[in-house]
């Protein structure tokens, strides 16, 4: 059990953040604090994506050194075509070299850039709404807002 948890230690802070965020959204009556909780919740998902892109022992996904895809192909071709030992050795080495380098997966990071933009936009719209609510009601506390709406309903019903 402990082993299972330790193997997945990277998920622990994510889960804590996620639950904290969700709890804040549910528990607080203050509209701004609720948005803070919402952002925390979203951020935990960004971390989830980033952590899934990590490959243990993997390098940053940048092609390093003199390795070029075309050269490797050429090398392998040469190895297959000419049976010359030296060439075969070189070609195989190049191919092996390419296979040996483990890269971290860059795609989740790119996805999360998009999700961050979405999160920022949501937060901006949310805060703008809070400003308007403050202007219209004079409060940003949920209880007071409900009370104001209730009096509006009973007032207009007469």
């Amino acid at each position, binding site marked *: 059990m402990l082993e299972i948890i330790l193997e997945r230690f990277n998920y622990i802070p994510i889960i804590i953040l996620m639950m904290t965020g*969700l709890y804040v959204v549910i528990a607080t009556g203050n509209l701004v604090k609720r*948005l803070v909780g919402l952002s925390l*919740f979203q951020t935990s998902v960004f971390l989830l994506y980033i952590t899934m892109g990590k490959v243990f022992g993997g390098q940053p996904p940048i092609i390093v050194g003199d390795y070029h895809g075309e050269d490797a192909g050429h090398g392998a071709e040469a190895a297959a075509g000419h049976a010359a030992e030296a060439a075969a050795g070189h070609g195989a080495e190049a191919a092996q070299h390419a296979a040996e380098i483990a890269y971290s997966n860059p795609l989740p990071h790119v996805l999360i850039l998009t999700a961050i933009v*979405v999160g920022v936009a949501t937060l901006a719209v*949310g805060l703008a*709404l809070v400003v*308007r609510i403050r202007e219209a009601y004079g409060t940003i506390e949920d209880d007071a807002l409900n009370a104001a709406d209730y009096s509006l309903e009973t007032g207009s019903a007469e």
Partner: protein
Amino acid sequence: MDMLASLLPAGIAVHAPALIVVIPLIMAAVAALMPRGIFAWGVTLVTAIAVAVLSLNILGQVSTGGVISYAMGGWLPPVGIELRVDMLNVPLLLLVGIVGLLCVIYALPSVADEIAKKQQSLFYSAFLVCFAGLLGVTITGDAFNVFVFLEISSISTYTIIAMGAGKDRRALTASYNYLVLGTIGATFFVIGVGFLYMATGTLNIADMAAVLEQNGHDRVTQAAFAFIVVGLGLKAAMFPLHVWLPNAYAFAPNFVTAFLASTATKVAFYALIRFVFSVFHPEVSFVAMSFTWLFAVVGVIAMMVASVQAVFQTDARRLLAYSSVAQVGYMMLGLGMGTAAGLSASMLHLMNHALMKGALFMALGAFALNFGVRRVKDLAGLGQTMPASSAAFTVASLSLVGVPLTVGFTSKWYLVTAALERGWWWAVAALMISSLLALAYVARLLSAIWMETPPAGKAGVAPARRLAPWMVLAPMSLLAFANIYFFFHADPLVGLARAAANAVMGGN
């Protein structure tokens, strides 16, 4: 169909899947620059016409040439983003395109009445962004892209709902609550997509399905399934996750309510069908179990509870909003049957419900436009003062109950048939009871409109008849007429629904 396929020159038709999303998105920027609301409306109208034509053209292309796969930017799928149109999402494209166009025609007088002059251009711009987002969710074949478009449409939806604040400040709190819940829903969805990506290593929906079929389902895909169902369920207002919807519909500008009620939740429901059927296979045990014990059961509860809640509402639009939640219950029930017949009944009800609710909310908008009425008891006597709008309202509300000679009857008929095929007597009973409840809340509206006398004006004389502007009347009457027309000519819609169900149930 050949005629539709050759509607556009070949050079444009090839790029139709991309254009249908890109045009509204670019036009949103153009609309925002317009100095006056009416010009922005013109831009919106032109865009909506273009989208409607493109959606018809895509329907023609798909029904003659099969599935369209469009590689965005020339990057071939599964690596690049794929726009994919098959028979399942064509009905949704048509729905959003054509109902969107009708709503835009309706918009001009309604928006002029409800939105401050200097905000109108920005309002139309936000609407176009929402429009583009909904079309994007419908057409994309990439799971993460679904999330992005879902949020594009949702964020702009929050703003256009909040624009109702000019009439009633509660629009602001409604919009805020929708924002919080909608964002939680979208985040759940994106967690689910992340798990799917972990399990399959791909984001392309068709590719995901292929990998999952090969590798089988493990705990990660089960978690993904749960997150995606909850996330999209929030967006589609599936029963226990519907709390944002009644206030959002009740306080948004009338045009926004009419548009959202007939498209937004439908598109989210489509996304749910796409994931549940295309990515996860309906025959996998945990999916099959969720059909019977989640979708069908919760659907039946929704049909009952939301209908009962609707009966006791005082605000007319809120009443219809609860009714919408109940109607989503019908669609869930159809989906929960897990058969081709059930799914096609569900798709049929999805389209028909858009026709009904579009007309109903437009009519309520017309009442609000002429008399400023919102509550059920204020509808008194409108049958005498606004007979045309009231007639359209009546036709659509009878359709909502499922009275014969309207499309509501057709889709309920198919739902009942599908339930009997499955041997689900309890579902048939639930459908009957829910229809009776629908009769109860519709009767409240109709009796107020037709039976009661209009309140006397200040001078003690009954108010004169007031005709709604033709731009309000025309789309509303057209939708109301469609409610009857498609009962007698059910084949086009039923055919589309059948083809949609076969597209996902028939293996491919």
